[in-house]
């Protein structure tokens, strides 16, 4: 799907929409598909290496902060650029990364909260999204002097949710590995992708993090354990309702008995 779209756009003039049944072109672009949810699982994290012998007073760790797909797929399909707001003691602390993979590497000594602003392609969403990540350089539990070969990895899983996505966005990202699309309603005719709106996407070079040099430190996130625990706990809670149910049944039974006994 992507390849064909790239071919179309190589003509460098925005093509008019073809093949849409009637209707205004603009209207179709901005039409939202209700009841559908597009979600992008991401991991926001940092990896910090102690510099060992090369460590100086103000440059003790090499660290990298990033926003990556949870399965290391290319986030460029949805994200246009990411701004990492570093501590003001850094030179030009507003670091812009406008092509995937959205990573930033630096060298420092201090831990601080990094504010991250994510901008999306125009057809996905006009608003930006803010999150933050606490950069950790030192391990939680001290276990001897830090080795320069073993980094401190801090990652947190999250999902970017687009409720009621635009038609054009949906058609573009449907079936992309980085994106989850909830069940589409029956008989939904999505227009084929490829339009001026998402030019920024096609201009960007592609970048997943599967072969990233740090990729073997990335954590794997699975919801199986948590889901299991949650469903098991819900069962327990249901069981705790049991005596109340029994009490109710008993009460109703007594009432029935009384009602039956009356007309004599």
């Amino acid at each position: 799907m992507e390849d064909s779209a790239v071919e179309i756009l190589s003509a460098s003039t925005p093509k008019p929409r073809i093949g849409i049944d009637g209707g205004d072109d603009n209207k179709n672009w901005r039409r939202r598909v209700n009841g559908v949810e597009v979600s992008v699982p991401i991991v926001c994290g940092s990896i910090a290496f102690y510099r060992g012998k090369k460590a100086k007073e103000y440059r003790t760790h090499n660290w990298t902060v990033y926003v990556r797909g949870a399965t290391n797929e290319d986030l460029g399909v949805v994200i246009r650029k990411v701004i990492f707001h570093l501590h003001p003691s850094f030179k030009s602390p507003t670091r812009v990364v406008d092509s995937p993979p959205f990573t930033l590497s630096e060298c420092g000594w201090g831990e601080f909260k990094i504010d991250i602003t994510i901008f999306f392609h125009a057809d996905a969403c006009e608003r930006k999204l803010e999150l933050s990540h606490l950069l950790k350089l030192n391990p939680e539990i001290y276990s001897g002097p830090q080795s320069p070969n073993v980094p401190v990895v801090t990652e947190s899983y999250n999902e970017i949710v687009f409720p009621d996505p635009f038609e054009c966005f949906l058609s573009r990202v449907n079936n992309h590995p980085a994106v989850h699309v909830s069940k589409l309603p029956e008989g939904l005719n999505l227009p084929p992708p490829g339009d001026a709106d998402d030019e920024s996407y096609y201009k960007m070079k592609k970048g997943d993090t599967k072969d990233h040099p740090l990729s073997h430190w990335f954590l794997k996130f699975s919801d199986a354990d948590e889901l299991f625990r949650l469903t098991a706990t819900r069962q327990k809670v249901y069981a705790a309702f049991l005596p109340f149910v029994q009490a109710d049944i008993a009460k109703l039974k007594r009432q029935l008995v009384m009602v039956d006994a009356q007309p004599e």
Partner: protein
Amino acid sequence: MGGTDAKDILGLPKTPLSLTQEKKSRPQKESHRKPDGISREVYALTGGVAPLMPSIDVTHLKRPPPHDEKVAWQWLPVKSSARKDDLQLYHWVRVVNDVPPTGDYSFAKYNKSVDVLKYTDDEYENHLTDPVSVWTKEETDQLFELCERFDLRFTVIADRFPLSRTVEELKDRYYSVTRALLRARAQSPAELANHPLIKEPYDMTRDRERKRALSMVLSQSRHQEKKDAEILAEAKRITEMRLAARRAAEPDVPANENIGSVSPSSNSQLPATAVAPSTLTMADYASTLASLRMLHVYLRTYGLEQMVQAASSAVGLRTIKRVEQTLQDLGVNLKPKVPTKTVCDEHLELRKEILTLLNLQKQYKESEGSSHREGTYAAMPDTPKDRVFASEPFSFGAERPIKKEPKRKGPGRRSDTPSPAHKRPRKLKASDL
């Protein structure tokens, strides 16, 4: 005397000067530093040191009057333009250099009065007769005379009015007469437009209402005030929620569908007496969902936070803490570590169910507490330490059957095993399952 006393009290070391030196320097210091105008003791209260900020100049404190003026006070007659009669009054006057003060009595300028309109008999006949025929000409004349005399102080006028009429009635009559008179006398209606009586005519019923409302507010007890404030806040919240929900519901009709999809697997096992989510909570969910959708993009964790807040909106802080404590006891993360859609949905449902369970227990306790079966059952501690599920290592996979029926002297009158040791029959251990 002086700063050394303070230092003594504080236990600070004294100045490095030797004692003899201090004694010598001290009287010198004091005679130098003591200013005129304040007594020695008073000055010493400040620590014997001049204030750092410029304060009142000491020389201002007891300034004698300028010596070139000769001021005397004389008992003189006073003339005031405010008095129309010939009464001669006297008062003390400050006379400077034998020249008494000139000019009018200084308070004469405050003698203002209201311009009460006077009508002729003709005017009365033509315009001012009371259509409802309550007011006669004599009464109206008397009213106007009193108005003039008392400068429209209607409470006084009402007192003096020979017939008993309420203040509002008097006001009404006066203002309507004046208004009619103005209209009749005006050359053109335009010049009247800005006259305050025409722009804002007196309305008797509104005046009555206003006074009644004021007196009600004044006589409200503090309790009533608090309740009113609460109700207003609640109403405001409800209207805001409804507004948010309606705004979101307008472009997208299936707002209800969304609610259904969020709680996919609510089991119907809940007992009938379960506290069903009140309409308030449902509105909370709807409006939270609507506001999330209006964001067009949000993080899953943020969405869960908002829904959890909506679920806890109708309950107090204590209950929320109990829910969280229960979650912890059961080994569930308060914030999911891998917040996928299903995990978040399950988490939310779990929280709601725990809330329902806690409410049920509370209801049960309250109803049982009032019954005659006091004893061990009703004597349940309701401290924050009270746990629904005792904290035990969660061992899934080990399936142990329920050992015994929960013993309680509840409405299901079981006479079999009364066990006073079971204070809380609801307290199921993790090992019971």
